[in-house]
Structures are given as structure tokens and as C-alpha cells.
């Protein structure tokens, strides 16, 4: 086998990796907004639930979370296929870190903006979505970019619940060929290229948001 023959299984694995990563980034972002907003809620039950979720997922190893959902949960009768499990756990993990980003950015909106909104009689939810969020979301983007890349790197662990992702394919190839150097170099390169694409996508979204908002950063610092 030459290195070009390695490409077929590796690309197949990369496809799975990209799919899992994209799905869990999008789902994770949705969870991040829900949990991050809930964290800022005045209702102690809502903010308490969100806080517990965030602490649980940030405070435990991803690998153990994967094993728990994959091996322990079925014991109480709830089981999902490996890919669903992988996407679910990665989404929850990214969502937990993202929630803190969302919360931090919302809290960073100057209190005077809330006072101005109150003086104009906007409702609380209108203030959140039309005054706070548009200002906060731009501040979130760099951190979200980092989380997206972190998420991609974390997907490597799903190979351990028998998902045939890039890392899984690399392992199998190496076991057959024993050509560790070439296989792992190509694998690293593969992750790196996907990460680059992710960074570019996140940058584009940030630029689009910034242009849509059309206000310079200096406006509120």
C-alpha cells in the first residue's frame, strides 16, 4: 500500500469527523444560547438548572461522558446508536462551554443599555433580543471560534465508542500497515485542514455579523 491508497479510508473517516463536528457545533451553539440565557435568568430554578448542567459537563472528562452515555445509559433502557451518542455528548459539552461565553457576553453589555431600554418601556424579552443580544453576539464570536476548533479536536475521542471517524480509520490503517509515520502525519494534516476551514467559516460569520451590525468595536468600550 502506498500513501495515496491510505487516502481512501482516511477521507471516509474525515467525512464522519466533519459531519459529527458540524452537527455538534450547530446543536452546541443552540444549547449554548438556551443555557447561557437561562444562566442570566432572575428565576433561581431556571438559572440553577442551567448552572448544574454547565458545571456537570465542564467538570467531567469527555471520554467518561461518552462512555456513560454509550455504556451506562442503556442499562436504564435508554440507548442510542454510536453516532447519535457522539453528536449528543459533544453538543452538550460544547453547549456547556458556549453557555459561559453567551452569559459572559450578555453580562458585558453595559448596564446603561438596560436602563435606556427600560426608560423606553421595552419589555424584558425585547430588550434581550433586540438590545443586548445584537451587541453581545459579536463579542461571542472569537470565543465561539475557539470552541468550534476545540470541538473538532474532541471528536477524535468518539473513535473509542466505535465510530469510524478519522482517528478510528487511522488506527485501523496503522494496525494493518504498521506505517505509523505516514498514517499519523496524514491524519494530523487532515485535522489541521478541517480546523483551518472551521476557522475561516467562523471568521466569515463574525465578519458578516459585524457588517450587519455596522458599528465599530470602539462604540462600546
Amino acid at each position, binding site marked *: 500500500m502506498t500513501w495515496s491508497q491510505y487516502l481512501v479510508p482516511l477521507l471516509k473517516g474525515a467525512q464522519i469527523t466533519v459531519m459529527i463536528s458540524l452537527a455538534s457545533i450547530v446543536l452546541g451553539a443552540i444549547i449554548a444560547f438556551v443555557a447561557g440565557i437561562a444562566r442570566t435568568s432572575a428565576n433561581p430554578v431556571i438559572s440553577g438548572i442551567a448552572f448544574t448542567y454547565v458545571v456537570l459537563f465542564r467538570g467531567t472528562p469527555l471520554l467518561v461522558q461518552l462512555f456513560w452515555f454509550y455504556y451506562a445509559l442503556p442499562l436504564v433502557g435508554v440507548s442510542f446508536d454510536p453516532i447519535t451518542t457522539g453528536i449528543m455528548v459533544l453538543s452538550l459539552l460544547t453547549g456547556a462551554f458556549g453557555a459561559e461565553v453567551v452569559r459572559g457576553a450578555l453580562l458585558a453589555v453595559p448596564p*446603561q*443599555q438596560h*436602563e*435606556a431600554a*427600560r*426608560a*423606553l*418601556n*421595552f*419589555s*424584558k424579552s*425585547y430588550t434581550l433580543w*433586540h*438590545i443586548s443580544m*445584537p*451587541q453581545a453576539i459579536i463579542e461571542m464570536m472569537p470565543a465561539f471560534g475557539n470552541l468550534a476548533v476545540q470541538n473538532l479536536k474532541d471528536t477524535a475521542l468518539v473513535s473509542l465508542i466505535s465510530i469510524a471517524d478519522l482517528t478510528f480509520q487511522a488506527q485501523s490503517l496503522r494496525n494493518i500497515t504498521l506505517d505509523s509515520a505516514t498514517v499519523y502525519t496524514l491524519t494530523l494534516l487532515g485535522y489541521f485542514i478541517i480546523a483551518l476551514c472551521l476557522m475561516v467559516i467562523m471568521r466569515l460569520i463574525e465578519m458578516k455579523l459585524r457588517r450587519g*451590525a*455596522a*458599528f*465599530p468595536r*470602539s*462604540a*462600546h468600550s
Partner: protein
Amino acid sequence: MTTPIIRFQDVTKRFGALTVLDDFNFDVRQGEKVTLIGPSGSGKSTVLRILMTLEPFQEGNLELAGLSYHEPQGRGEFKASEKHLHRIRSNVGMVFQSFNLFPHMSVLRNIVEAPVAVLKMKRDEAEGRAVELLRMVGLLDKKDHYPSQLSGGQQQRVAIARALAMRPRVLLFDEPTSALDPQLVGEVLGVIRGLAHEHDLTMLLVTHEMRFAREVSDRVCFFDKGRIVEQGEPERFFSNPEQPRTREFLSSVLNG
């Protein structure tokens, strides 16, 4: 009109152990233009912030346009429901020292947003009114600019237009020119001076601009330590203050 539009009755306001207003009594007639002056920390902003429902108070009674700030069955720190506070706020507007325009909205949208979202005004109609207001404050040519592209004086004029777009009966100004470079103060005072001619609009103005206070107000109130030490019609107040504390303050700001 015999009943005042604003009535503070024995209002007490505390921040923790600090009592800022202690059995505070204060009435304002509809259409009256009242200036509050006084040393830093005397509670001037607190009076405005309580009126704008930005701060709750602990004791006493406050009414605005016949609405009490506390509901009989009221709950929470404001002792009133959000719906009731909403009703109160529909009568009041506020202009802040730091303008507080929304940085992500154009000048026009800053003004149009609340009438459309809160008063359910048609967008066309709201924009028409906004254009009128911008013409009034002399900034029609800036309607598509963003706040960060304007000078402080221009931002404050937009903020005044934004508050007026909600057609408040009472307009509160908290040191509207204190954050401005001296050469920009005049244009903002000019706009406020214009409003002082609006017969029905009640204005409460906190300012350090004594000449301006003398010129536009019907009544000047000197605040010290959460109480009104002396008040009166501006000519009399400035030319012949009665209380030693007032004289001391006036001489410190006029000569300092």
C-alpha cells in the same frame, strides 16, 4: 390642574445602610419646569431614577399622573407588577448623562424602535415622526449614521429625540451636558431650551449649568443630603438665597 403630576410623600430610599432619601416630600405641577441642583451624592439622580422605575424605594408613597408606584398587592422589590410599572413608564422619559444610545442601531432606528415595538405605531408613521424630531434637534442629515459616528453633543440631541418619540408627559434630564466638551454644551442646551416652551411637558432637570437653570426653569430646588433645603422661583433663588447652605453652594459653583 390642582393635583400635581408628580407627588413624593414621605419617600424613604436606602442603599443598604445608606439612607439617600429620608421622608422626602416633593410635588411637581403639570407643565412645570423644575431644576434640581446640589452637591455630588445629595440624591438628585436617585430622585429621577426612582421616577423612571430604575430604582425601587422602601417607604412612603409616590404618584405620577395619578398612578401610585406601589400596587396594593404589589410584589418584588418594586412592590408592583411589571405590567403596572410599564403603565407608569408610559408617562415618563429620561435623558441620561452618558446618552446611552443603542450602538448597533442607526440614528433613525434608535428613535423609531420604541414607538414601533412598544406603542405599536406603524413604521411609516414612526419614521415620519422621527424625521420631524431629527429636524427639530438639527440632525436630519445624520439619520443614517451610527451613534459612534456622532459627537457627544449630537448623540445627546438624538437621545432627546428618542425620548420625545415616546410622547412622555414627564421628561427627566440627568446632567445632560456633564459628559460633553464645553464647546458642545450649547447645542444641547439649545434643544432643551426649545422644549421648555412646550406648555404641557413637565420637565425635571438635574444640572450644574446655573445660568441655564435660571433661564429655563419655573422653580429651582437645592438638594443637600437627600432633602430639599431651599426652593423657589429662579430670579429670587439665585439673587437672594435664604439658607446659608444654599449660599455656600452657589458661591462654590459660581466661583469655582
